[in-house]
C-alpha cells in the first residue's frame, strides 16, 4: 500500500458522475472474505452474512425505489420548497435538480418508472451524485421528510447501475474493503505519508500541484499534517478525580490514522471528567463510506462487527468524537433492520452512542481552569447538527473555556463541502462551497476554528490555507484538553 494507491482509491471512491464503483463482472466467489469477526456470536445464532453478495444488481435498487415503504417516504414531501435555502448545492447551482426538492422529484419520478432505465446513469446519477448528503434539508423540512433515508436508496440505485473499468474497480475494492476497515494498514499508510510530508516531497508536489489530475490534487490538498503517535487500542485510561463511569471510545478509521492527536485529547478530556476510558480493539470503520458507495452488504458487516465489539465492552456509553461516524452508529438500527438477530442488538448499541459534546454536556463539566485565548467559531458538523441534532452542547462547552470568545458564522448550518469524500469526488463544487464558507469565516474575525468531525477538520485545514487566513483548526476535544492542561 502506498500513497499513490490511496490517492487513486479516494479519487475513485469519489468520482461521482463518471466513475464506476462496483466491479460489474466480479461475482460473489471472487470477493475476498473478511478475515473474521472479532465480536462474539452466540451459539445457535445464524452467522451474519460473512460473504456479502459482491454485486447487488440494479434491479435490487429499483425494487427498493418502488417499494411501498419508499413510496410512502417520498409522499411525505409536499414540495413546499422550504428546504431550498438550506441546501449548499442549490446555492451554488440555483437549479431545482440540484436542490433537495428536485432530487426528491427525481426519486419520485424514478419510483414511478418515469425515468428510463438508461437515464438512471445520466442526469439522475449526476444530480444525485452532487448531493453532499449534509441533511441540512432535514432540519429545514416542516414535514419531517427523511431525506437521508431517501437519498441512501437513490444513491444505491446509481452505484449499482454503474459499470466501470477494472482498475477503478480494483482500487475501490482496495480502499473501501482492504484499507478503511483495517486499522494497522491505515496506520502504516499514515506513517508513509508522514515521511512524505517530513521529507519535503510534499512541498515539491504542492508546488507542482497544477500538473496533478484534478481528483488527485483535491486528495493531496486535504491531507492534514500527520503526527507521530499511534497509541495501541485496548488499554484502559483511568478516571481522574471522582469516578463517574466507564466509557468506550469509538476511534474511527481516518481519524485514528491521520488525526491521532484528536483521539488522544478526547481520552484525556473524558478522564478529567471522571470517566474511565477504553477503546475496544475489535472495533472497526463505521461503514458510512461503504454505505455511501452503495456497498450496503459490506457496511452491514462492519456494523455487526462494531455492534459486537461495543456490546461486549462493559461500558456506560460509547463516545464518538466524529459527527459522521456518530450518526452512522446511531443509524445502525435502520441499517440492520432486516437482520432479526442484529436489529435489536443495534438498537441496544445505538441507545448508548453519544457524541462527545452531547455526552459531556449531559453532566456538569469539570470546569477547565486554563486560559485559551482565542476568538473561536464552532464549525458544526452536518451529521452532528442535522443528523444528530446536536447544536447547543458544543457551544455550551466552548463557553465554559476561560479566555475563549465564541463567535457565530452567518450561516452556521451550512456544510463546508467536505461531506465524506465529496471534496475529492466533486472538487470544483466543493471548492465553491468551501470558498463561501471561508469568506464567512473571514468575516467572523475568528482566529480559531473548532471542529467536530474528521472530514470537516481536514477540509478546514485546507480552507484556511486556500483562503490565506491566519486561523488555527482544532477539534473541540483539543480545545478542552488545552483548557484542562492550563
Amino acid at each position, binding site marked *: 500500500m502506498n500513497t499513490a494507491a490511496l490517492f487513486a482509491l479516494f479519487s475513485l471512491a469519489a468520482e461521482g458522475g463518471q466513475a464506476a464503483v462496483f466491479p460489474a463482472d466480479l461475482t460473489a466467489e471472487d470477493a475476498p472474505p473478511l478475515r473474521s469477526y472479532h465480536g462474539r456470536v452466540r451459539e445457535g445464532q445464524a452467522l451474519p452474512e460473512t460473504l456479502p453478495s459482491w454485486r447487488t444488481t440494479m434491479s435490487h435498487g429499483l425494487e427498493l425505489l418502488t417499494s411501498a415503504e419508499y413510496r*410512502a417516504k417520498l*409522499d*411525505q414531501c*409536499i*414540495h*413546499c*420548497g*422550504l*428546504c*431550498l*435555502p438550506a441546501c449548499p448545492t442549490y446555492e451554488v447551482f*440555483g*437549479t*431545482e*435538480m440540484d436542490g433537495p*426538492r*428536485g*432530487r426528491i*422529484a*427525481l426519486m419520485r*419520478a424514478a419510483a414511478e418508472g*418515469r*425515468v428510463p432505465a438508461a*437515464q438512471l446513469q*445520466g*442526469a*439522475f446519477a449526476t*444530480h444525485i451524485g452532487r448531493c453532499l448528503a449534509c441533511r441540512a434539508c432535514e432540519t*429545514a*423540512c*416542516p*414535514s*419531517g421528510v427523511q431525506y437521508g433515508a431517501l437519498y441512501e436508496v437513490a444513491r444505491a440505485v446509481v452505484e449499482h447501475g454503474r459499470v466501470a473499468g477494472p482498475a477503478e474497480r480494483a482500487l475501490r475494492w482496495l480502499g473501501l474493503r482492504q484499507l478503511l476497515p483495517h486499522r494497522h494498514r491505515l496506520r502504516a499508510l499514515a506513517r508513509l505519508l508522514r515521511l512524505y510530508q517530513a521529507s519535503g516531497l510534499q512541498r515539491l508536489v504542492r508546488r507542482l500541484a497544477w500538473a496533478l489530475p484534478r481528483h488527485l490534487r483535491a486528495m493531496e490538498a486535504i491531507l492534514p499534517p500527520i503526527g507521530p503517535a499511534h497509541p495501541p487500542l485496548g488499554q484502559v485510561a483511568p478516571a481522574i478525580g471522582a469516578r463517574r463511569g466507564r466509557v468506550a471510545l469509538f476511534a474511527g478509521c481516518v481519524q485514528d490514522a491521520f488525526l491521532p492527536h484528536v483521539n488522544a485529547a478526547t481520552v484525556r478530556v473524558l478522564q478529567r471528567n471522571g470517566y474511565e476510558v477504553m477503546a475496544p480493539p475489535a472495533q472497526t470503520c463505521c461503514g458510512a463510506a461503504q454505505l455511501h458507495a452503495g456497498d450496503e452488504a459490506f457496511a452491514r458487516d462492519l456494523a455487526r462487527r462494531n455492534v459486537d465489539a461495543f456490546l461486549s465492552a462493559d461500558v456506560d456509553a460509547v463516545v464518538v468524537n466524529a459527527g459522521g461516524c456518530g450518526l452512522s452508529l446511531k443509524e445502525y438500527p435502520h441499517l440492520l433492520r432486516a437482520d432479526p438477530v442484529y436489529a435489536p442488538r443495534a438498537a441496544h448499541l445505538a441507545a448508548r452512542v453519544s457524541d462527545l459534546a452531547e455526552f459531556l454536556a449531559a453532566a456538569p463539566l469539570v470546569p477547565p481552569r486554563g486560559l485559551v485565548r482565542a476568538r473561536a467559531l464552532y464549525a458544526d458538523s452536518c451529521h452532528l447538527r442535522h443528523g444528530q441534532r446536536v447544536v447547543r452542547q458544543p457551544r455550551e462547552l466552548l463557553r465554559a473555556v476561560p479566555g475563549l470568545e465564541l463567535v457565530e458564522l452567518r450561516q452556521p448550518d451550512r456544510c463546508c463541502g467536505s461531506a465524506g469524500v465529496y471534496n475529492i469526488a466533486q472538487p470544483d463544487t466543493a471548492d465553491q462551497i468551501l470558498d463561501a464558507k471561508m469568506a464567512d469565516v473571514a468575516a467572523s474575525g475568528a482566529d480559531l476554528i473548532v471542529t467536530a468531525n474528521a472530514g470537516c477538520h481536514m477540509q478546514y485545514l485546507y480552507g484556511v490555507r486556500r483562503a490565506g487566513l491566519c486561523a488555527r483548526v482544532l477539534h473541540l476535544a483539543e480545545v478542552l484538553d488545552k483548557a484542562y492542561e492550563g
Partner: protein
Amino acid sequence: MKLHPLSFILHPSQIVTDPVQLLTYEVDAGLDRGRPDGVVFPRSAEEVAQVVRWAAAHGVPLIARGAGTGLAGGAVAEHGGLILQLSALNRIELDPAGRIATAEAGAVNLVLDGLARAEGLYFPPDPSSQRSSTIGGNIGTNAGGPHCFKYGVTTNYVAGVTVVLADGRLARFGGPAHDYPEYDLTGLITGGEGTLGVVTKAYLRLVRNPPAVKTLMAAFDSVEAAGTAVSAIIAGGLVPATMEMMDEKIVRIIEDYAHPGLPSGAGAVLIVEVDGHPASVGPQIAEVEGILRAHGARELRVAGTAAERDQIWYARKSAAGAMARLAPAYYLVDGTVPRSRLAETLAAVNRILVEHELRAGHVFHAGDGNLHPLILVDDPSDRELIARVQAAGRAILEVCVAAGGSITGEHGVGIEKRAFMPLMYSPAELDVMREIKAIFDPQGILNPGKVIPPISDDSLKIEDDAVQRNEGMSQSLTFNLQSSILTPSTPGEATELLHESIAQGRTVRIAGGGTKSALLPLADMTLSTAGLRGVRAYAPADLYVTVGAGTPLAELQAELSRDRMWAPLASPWPAATVGGIVAAALNAPLRMRYGGVRDVLLAATVALPDGRTIRAGRPVVKNVAGYDLPKLFAGSHGTLGLLTDLTLKIAPLPRARATLVALPEDLDRATALAARLLRTALVASALLIVRPTAGGEGPVAPDRAWWRDLRAGSLPTIFDTSSLALIYTAEGHQEDVADELAEARAALREAGVAGVQLDEPAGSEVWGIFLAGAGPHETVLRAGVPPQNLPALLAAAEPALAGAPFVADVAAGLLYARGAPDVSAIQTAARERGGYAAVLSAPPGYAGDRWGHVPDGIELMRALKRRWDPHSRLNPGAFIV
C-alpha cells in the same frame, strides 16, 4: 418545439431541455402538474427581455418562476413552453435614507428582510414560505402572511416594478418616488401571477423595525369565544401586529407531535403579538390580556423572554409538520371572509368536512378573516378521495364568497382556483380582466391559461350579502339630458346617465366636491356625485365602511368618529368627497403611517363608460382573486370609470397625537435633521419641512385658530425669526407617541435646534392648510423624487422656487410648492433626480406641461382607456392619457 436558437441569446448552461432534468420543474408547491419544454435561467433583465422577444416571435408560452413555493399551480407549465427561472436575478440594494429597497425578482424575501433589519428597517410581508420565496413570486401572488392585519399585504409595499412586457420591452411602472402621475399599473401587475408581464425588479417600501414586541397565547372554550374576544380587541381600538388562531383539532395534533406546551383541551388557542416602542408593548399586551380574560380566556400566557416567545411561535409553526405526521399529504384551503363572519364560516366549514367525511384542522389569521383548513389526504393516489377533497374545497370557498369574502386570501388563483373565479365575479367583471390581459399580452404567451377561466365557465356567480343593488333604476330616469348638470341619486341612475350621455356622443365631466377643476377643459355634461351620498354599509368589527362617492370626507369622518373610528385619509378641502379623493389619489403626509389612498381603498363599484357596471375588489384586506382592479381606478382621475360606491379600510382613532415643531436655521440643517428623524420614525404620521411665507410676509393661514395660538402661545415668534419649520407628528398609543417624540427631541437637542411640542396641529393639517390656502391664480405643483433625493431636489429647485412657500413631505419625497415662477425648471430638476413634477392647479390658461412625466406604460394606459372609452368622452383632459 425547437429551442436551440435560444442559444444565441443564452449560454448553454442557462438552458435546460433534458427530459429528466425537466421532471424537477413539473410542479410548484401545489397539486397541479405540467411538463415544460425547457427551463431558462436568465441572469439579467436584458436577458429576460431577449427571451421574451424570442418567445413572442415563436409564440412560445412563458412561465415566470421564482422559488416554486406557490400553492395554486401559478408556476406550472400547464401548456408546455418555457419556464423563466428568475432565481439568479437576486440583487438587492437598500437605501435606508429613503426607506426603499430595490430588489430583483429572484431575491429571497427573508434575505431582503434580514438586510433591512440590519439597518433597523423591516419588510412586513411575511408569507410562511418567506425563507425560500422570492420577491417576484410575492409580487405575482400579492403574498400575505401573519402580519397583514396590522401591516397589510405585499402590494402595500410595492412602490414600483420593472417589467418585461409581452413584446419584450422593458418598462418601469411607478418607481422609487411616490405618486407618479400614472395609472397604477404596479398595483395591477401585483397579484397578476405573471400573466401581465415579467417583473424583473421591484421598488419596495420599508418601515422601521419595531424595537419591541410582546406575545401572548390564550386558550378559549370555543372558536366562537375566541372570535368574540378578537372582535373585542378590535373594538377596543387596539391594532396588534398579528392575531393567529388554531382550533381544537389542530391544537391536539400539534401538541401530540411537537409538545410545545399548548393548553390541553382548549377549544381554540389564540396567539396575539403587539409591537411598538419598548414602553408601549407592556401596556398594550396588558390591555389585550384584560380584554381576553373578560371574554373567557381560560388559560393565558404572556411570553416574558425571547425563548418563551419562540416557544409560542414554535407551536404555531409546527402545524404543517404535525399534519404531515398524520397523513402523507394534506390540502391547504385558503379563503377569506370579513372577520366578524369567521366563527359562523368555520362552523359551516366543519359541517362540509363532516359531510365529505374528511379530517382537517384549522389554522387561521384571525385578524383578517383568512382561514386555512388543512384537510388530511391519507392516500394521494386515491382518486375518489382527491375528488372528495376538491369538492369540499369548493364548497368551503362557496361559503366564503357567500359571506362576502374571497376564494383566495393569499395563495392566488393559478390553475387550482381558476374554475372558482365565476363564483365570485360576474361575467362583466371577468370580461374586464380578460380585456386587461388582452391589452398587456395580446398573443397570450405570458403564463397562459392562468387566473382567468375560459368564457364558457362564466355565470356561476354566487350573490353575496355585500352586493349593492341598483335600486330605483330606470323609472326614476327623469333627468333631462339636455340639462348640462346631472345629479343622479342612486348608483343605478348614475350608471344609466353616464352610459346614455356617452352613447349619445357627449363628453362627461365627473364632479365631486368641485375642489380641483380649474385646469380642466369644459365638457358637454357634468355628472355630479352629490346625490350619491351617505354610508351604504358600515362594519366596524370588520374595519371597513362603504360610502357613496359623493359623500364628503368630513361627513364620513364625523360619522365614524362616533365609534372612535376614522378612515385614514385627509384632504385640504373641506368639501372634498370620498370619490374625488380616491380618483385624484392626492396623498396626505399621514400616508407614512397608514398607506396611501390606493392602500385604503378595498373595493369600489364602478360604472364603466361603455355601460357595464363592475364591482372591483371585496371588503376584505386579503383578496388575491384575479387582478386587483381597485388599484387601477384609484388615482385614474375618473378617466376609466365612474366610482359610485367605495369601500374603505377604517382604523381606530389614534388615542394620542402630538406634534413637534422645530425651527432649523437653514435648509441644510432642516434636511439633515429630517433625515435623522426619518430613521427612527415608527408611529410618525408626518415629517414635513415647511416654508410658510414668501419672503417673511406672514404665515400661511392666519385665519386658522391654531396658527394664531401658535403665534400667541408657545411659539410667539416662530415665523418672525425663522423662515423654516420642521414638523413631526406621531400618533397611536400614548406610550408610543411619548417615546417617539422623546427620541425626536433628543435628536433635536443633539442638532442644537430649538423645538416645542404641541397637541395640534397634525402634520397632515398643516399640509392641508398650505394647499387649501392657494389662491385661484397661484400655480401649485407637486414634485416627487425618491425620498433620499429630496434634499438634493430642494437645493436644486431653490432658484426656480425663488423663495416660494413650500411643504416638503420628507417621508414620501414629495415637494408641494405654491406660486413657483419657473415650473419647467423644477420639472427638470425632479426628473434628473428620478422623479417628476406635476401641476396640481394653475391659473386658467396655463399651457405648460401639466404632468412633467412620460410614463413607460403610457401606451398600455391609453389602450386601457381606449378599450372602455374609445372616444375619450369620460373626463376628457383630466389625466395624462
